[in-house]
């Protein structure tokens, strides 16, 4: 018997074992997928169920605030205002979880229209102006005048900008600056616009630059942390930008501010 013939049963045995391992791996992947679907379903159900009572709480508080059931004292008004502000914050977080769960369960589609990036930037910065001012932050907006009209999902782009600017304001201490810039891609031939949301805040260490885009990831995730988001803002932002065929990234160093960039392709009417 040649040595090749002697090896044949050994090889056959090896193949059989590898095949068994592949089957095993496929089964495990299937199980993990099922569990992930369950988790997503759970997130979606629970956020929906949380919204309903919260909606009722906020409405009742506003009924009191607006004096519909009679006058309230100044002290009572203070408590009512806290119920409304706190309630609205909670609602925003729940809405974010719901949006994330939806996005993971059914593939997202873009609702496209033509819009002006300048309008969108103005709208988002206007909404953040009073918050920035209250925190003692300067807010600057600079949009090139030669930008072409954009085609894309306006609501989703607004969402991305709102999240980035919200973070910039959140993570920058009083006296700092935050800004939004938008211009045509660096090369004249570039078929894209580049949007920057920057701040002079606490910055992000290099090894966290990718991590922060993962779901629920936060640089400071300890229970004693000062900031109370849920860690979905950037995950959703990346999803939305990539859906448009763009890219999003951060340039930052700890203690030296952060600059978030994203690109959007300039698409011509089909």
């Amino acid at each position, binding site marked *: 018997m040649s040595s090749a013939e002697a090896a044949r049963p050994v090889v056959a045995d090896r193949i059989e074992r590898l095949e068994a391992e592949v089957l095993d791996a496929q089964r495990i992947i299937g199980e993990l997928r099922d569990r992930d679907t369950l988790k997503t379903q759970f997130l979606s159900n629970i956020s*929906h169920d949380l*919204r*309903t*009572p*919260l*909606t*009722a709480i*906020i*409405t*009742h508080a*506003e*009924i009191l*605030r*607006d004096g*519909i*059931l009679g006058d309230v004292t100044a002290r009572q008004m203070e408590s009512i205002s806290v119920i409304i502000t706190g309630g609205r914050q909670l*609602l925003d977080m729940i*809405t974010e979880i*719901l949006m994330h769960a939806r996005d993971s369960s059914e593939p997202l589609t873009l*609702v496209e*229209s033509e819009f002006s990036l300048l309008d969108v930037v103005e709208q988002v910065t206007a909404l953040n102006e009073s918050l920035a001012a209250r925190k003692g932050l300067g807010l600057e907006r600079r949009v090139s005048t030669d930008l072409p009209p954009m085609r894309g999902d*306006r*609501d989703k782009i607004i969402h991305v900008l709102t999240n980035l600017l919200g973070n910039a304001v959140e993570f920058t201490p009083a006296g700092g600056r935050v800004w939004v810039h938008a211009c045509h891609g660096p090369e004249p031939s570039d078929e894209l616009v580049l949007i920057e949301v920057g701040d002079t805040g606490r910055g992000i260490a290099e090894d966290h630059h990718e991590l922060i885009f993962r779901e629920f990831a936060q640089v400071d995730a300890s229970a004693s942390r000062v900031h109370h988001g849920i860690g979905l803002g950037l995950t959703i932002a990346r999803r939305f930008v990539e859906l448009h065929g763009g890219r999003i990234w951060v340039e930052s160093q700890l203690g030296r501010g952060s600059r978030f960039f994203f690109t959007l392709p300039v698409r011509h009417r089909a």
Partner: protein
Amino acid sequence: MTARILLVEDSALISGALRVLLEASGYDVTVAATASEAIAWPDGSPPDVMLLDLTLPDGDGLTVIGGLAARGLRPRATLAMTGHGDTATRERCASAGCDAVLVKPVPVKELLQIVSDRVV
């Protein structure tokens, strides 16, 4: 005569809150918790304003609009209430015949303003 509002909303907590608001503001409020209940509006003349939740246990809230219209009972104004006011939802509501889309929790002042604009 007191203006009549048909409030179509499956959550008793939310319809309860809106009922307090609207009744205290002088309106006559009828609550329907399902689409079929809303379409079965028992009176011969339509409600003045319909506040319509989009997700009902027996289906899409927008079906109520057609259901009432088929009985010749089109409210003077229909205001949709939804959890998210994205463009797609707004367009769907507009083409179904809604006069406005309100995102829940509907700001109380805004709701009263819209309703009083519609019933004069």
